[in-house]
């Protein structure tokens, strides 16, 4: 999977830009605020039709423009890949893959896969359970796009059940109870489907996470990842039945996949609260890397790797081991400062004042010196 060339029109800060990418490592260098991240955001947009920074879609269109266009030429499974996406200022998007219009956005998932490492990833370890659930669910979809439906079904059923719980206002008459029975059954099915998928994913992820952590951390340690969901062991339908009185009282579904957490620990220490920031950062990287390795193994080729401004946070030794530990594939890194000593880019793109200049070294570095 590879992106060779990228065109942007009215995307973020760019009125118009064209960018060539190396099959191996491309470095995007420029001062803060020049638009480095906007370039990689465009690649991520083609893969997910969203922003990895959590920006709403209409914020991706350049201020004052009617629509943004992102176009990329590349390769997938040995065949040419052309993805064209238009995003209207109103937020609606249209995508063509190899000049074929996609019937559903869901069909885009899997056309281009991207793994993003960003400074915000620290939140995966330090932040609340929602961050870790999103990490798991995004990874589920990356491994198997069908899980996009597993996830959206659960969201919808849960919203319906919560709306009903809110409406009954704490008292459940027999009519409302009969309706709630139906939503309980639907929720039990949808919730168990997502719970089982997450559990299987965590089981596959655990061994990869251990080796990924050892590769980036300054000292090796035993890392644990546990998907905490007692409701799944007990049977969700039973749990919902037992918890009904409490749910009715609170007007909310209190137990289920939407409350799951992924418990991370380094040795005996809970990673969220009891380890150093350096260790947390290493663990966040390890989570991304383990996900990347898993998708590579499941899909057969590595996703395009985006390292957005991550080296500013790492010392050179760990930067080098991170670079070494990554599966071989296309990598795009952005940095405001120096490149880590171990990085030998085939192409360097300099971003300044909205202009892109590319310099490639005379002889592409092949192998190691």
């Amino acid at each position, binding site marked *: 999977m590879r992106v060779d060339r990228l065109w942007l029109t009215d995307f973020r800060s760019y009125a118009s830009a064209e960018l060539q990418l190396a099959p191996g490592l491309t470095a995007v260098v420029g001062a803060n605020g020049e638009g480095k991240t906007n370039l990689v955001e465009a690649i991520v947009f083609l893969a997910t039709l969203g922003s990895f920074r959590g920006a709403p879609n209409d914020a991706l269109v350049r201020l004052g423009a009617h629509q943004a266009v992102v176009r990329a030429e590349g390769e997938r499974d040995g065949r040419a890949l052309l993805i064209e996406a238009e995003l209207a200022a109103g937020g609606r998007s249209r995508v063509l893959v190899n000049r074929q219009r996609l019937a559903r956005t869901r069909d885009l998932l899997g056309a281009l896969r991207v793994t993003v490492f960003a400074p915000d990833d620290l939140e995966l370890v330090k932040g609340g359970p929602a961050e870790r659930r999103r990490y798991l669910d995004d990874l589920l979809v990356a491994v198997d796009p069908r899980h996009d*439906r597993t996830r959206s079904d659960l969201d919808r059923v849960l919203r*319906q059940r919560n709306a009903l719980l809110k*409406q009954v206002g704490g008292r459940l008459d027999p009519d409302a109870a009969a*309706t709630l029975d*139906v*939503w309980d059954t*639907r929720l039990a099915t949808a919730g168990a489907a997502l719970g089982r998928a997450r559990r299987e994913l965590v089981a596959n992820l655990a061994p990869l996470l251990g080796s990924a952590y050892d590769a980036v951390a300054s000292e090796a340690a035993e890392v644990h990842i546990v998907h905490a969901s007692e409701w799944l062991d007990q049977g969700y339908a039973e749990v919902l039945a037992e918890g009904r009185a409490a749910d009715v009282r609170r007007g909310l579904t209190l137990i289920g996949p939407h409350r799951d957490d992924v418990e991370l620990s380094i040795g005996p220490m809970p990673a969220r609260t009891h380890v150093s920031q350096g260790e947390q950062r290493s663990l966040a990287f390890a989570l991304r890397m383990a996900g990347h390795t898993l998708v590579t193994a499941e899909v057969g080729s590595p996703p395009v790797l985006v390292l957005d401004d991550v080296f500013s946070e790492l010392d050179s030794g760990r930067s080098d081991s991170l670079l070494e530990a990554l599966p071989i594939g296309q990598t795009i890194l952005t940095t405001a400062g120096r490149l880590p000593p171990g990085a030998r880019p085939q192409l360097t793109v300099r971003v300044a004042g909205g202009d892109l200049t590319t310099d490639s070294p005379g002889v592409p570095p092949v192998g190691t010196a």
Partner: protein
Amino acid sequence: MSVYTGAVQDLIDELGRLPGVGPKSAQRIAFHLLKIPTVDAVRLARAITEAKERVTFCERCFNLAEGTLCGICSDDRREPHVLCVVEESRDIVAVERTREYRGRYHVLQGAISPIEGIGPDQLKVKELLARIDPEGVTEVILCTNPNIEGEATAMYLGRLLSPLGLTVTRIASGLPVGGDLEYADELTLGRALEGRRSFDS
């Protein structure tokens, strides 16, 4: 916001309230209506008024009707003991096009969706139950949409009707006839596999 004077803006606003009509389409239709000959515009207005005056809901099945009963309920040739339960009147049109079904209908006028404040009380559920005995209904086909709300509605009705000792069935989901397997989306194909039947020759 409103750049047009009184009557024009009123027209645009009214059109914009229609389903599937956004502000731009509303504006285009309004200008079209203002441009066409008066007789044509008045004919449209009269069609709307007359439809609103004459068309009501069938007292029995809640399909659109002119008079107390709809065309299907007043047709003696229809099998009276089988009921096909649909969400909207337009779903009847879809089922009728199959020419496979000779029974009668019951229109719920929606599906259970707490988000939109729609529960069984807002639907014609009590009216459905009230038909079972007097009409001697022996089979109910649950023909709601195969989405989250439609499935929930079907499940709710199934639980309500099964104890009454009649046959309750749910329409199958599967592949479009005359299509190619390779073009089927994986969800539909998955459901079709789930609902496979043994091959009897």
